């Protein structure tokens, strides 16, 4: 703890390990949030195997694979931005963070085109076209919109978080000796990546 007797230098109590552990604990709540949805998915997939198979054909595998590459690459640039700050390469770290944000935006733009294409085909929650299909397919698209939608919200939160980190790096709040905030933002970003690693085969690669 900071003591009033320290007059020569400011002594600020810091616990980076505790900070990271707090972030991990938060990530476990995210695991439960998405885990519940994966539970729901698994039971319905089991129950309506054929309908899921049929409905998944509507999804664009190439688009899904492309977005996987985009998100995995954004995870790389995020991890590299931490190495850069550890090496005291501030500008490079900021550049890598900005590339991460750009890739996140790119992911969302792809997602937007993907969803609007579905909407044009009349496939959106509650649409006549969708409701005329059988219940397994309705469930598939319900889960598709909820799970990729919730994941999309996490991407938005993540990119805002990283933008705040970039600003902090610029203002020297995040430095070579104090970069735990950047690490925690990175942990969040990698979790978003992991969720997509599972979403991609479960929705786009059903054959």
């Amino acid at each position, binding site marked *: 703890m900071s003591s009033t007797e320290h007059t020569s230098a400011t002594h600020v109590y810091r616990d980076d390990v505790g900070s990271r552990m707090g972030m*991990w604990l938060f990530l476990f709540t995210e695991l439960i949030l998405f885990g519940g949805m994966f539970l729901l998915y698994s039971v319905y997939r089991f129950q309506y195997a054929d309908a899921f198979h049929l409905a998944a054909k509507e999804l664009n*595998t190439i688009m899904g694979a492309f977005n996987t590459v985009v998100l995995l690459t954004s995870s*790389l640039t995020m991890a590299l931005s931490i190495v850069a700050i550890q090496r005291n390469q501030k500008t490079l770290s900021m550049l890598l963070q900005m590339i991460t944000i750009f890739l996140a935006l790119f992911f969302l733009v792809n997602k937007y085109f993907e969803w609007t294409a579905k909407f044009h085909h009349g496939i959106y929650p509650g649409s006549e076209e969708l409701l005329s299909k059988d219940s397994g397919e309705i469930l598939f698209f319900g889960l598709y919109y909820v799970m990729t939608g919730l994941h999309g919200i996490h991407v938005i939160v993540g990119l805002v978080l990283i933008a705040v980190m970039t600003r902090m790096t610029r203002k020297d709040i995040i430095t070579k000796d104090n970069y735990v905030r950047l*690490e925690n933002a990175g942990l969040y970003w990698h979790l978003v990546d992991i969720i997509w690693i599972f979403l991609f085969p479960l929705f786009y690669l*059903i*054959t």
Partner: protein
Amino acid sequence: MEKHDYYHEHSHSYAIYILVWLALMALTAITVAVAGMDIGRFTVVSALVIAAFKAYLVLTIFMHLRSETKTFVVFVIVAIFFLGISFVLLFSDYSFH
């Protein structure tokens, strides 16, 4: 303390992250290729195994779990274990209906 030194010696290298990224890219290509093949029920199994391996790489390298203390690793294992229990209980309940 040894752990701590390890972290500071090894985490400053760009190479390991780029290697892991290449591995993740390769695994993505493999999972897409395997999904195109007709191997029946093994399709979903192979997709999940590959996804789990990709998640393992992200957890250990990108999320630095490899260089964190054991406490972190135990935490993560417990969290995944309980999620696993949820699946086991759900499907044991489901299969008896």
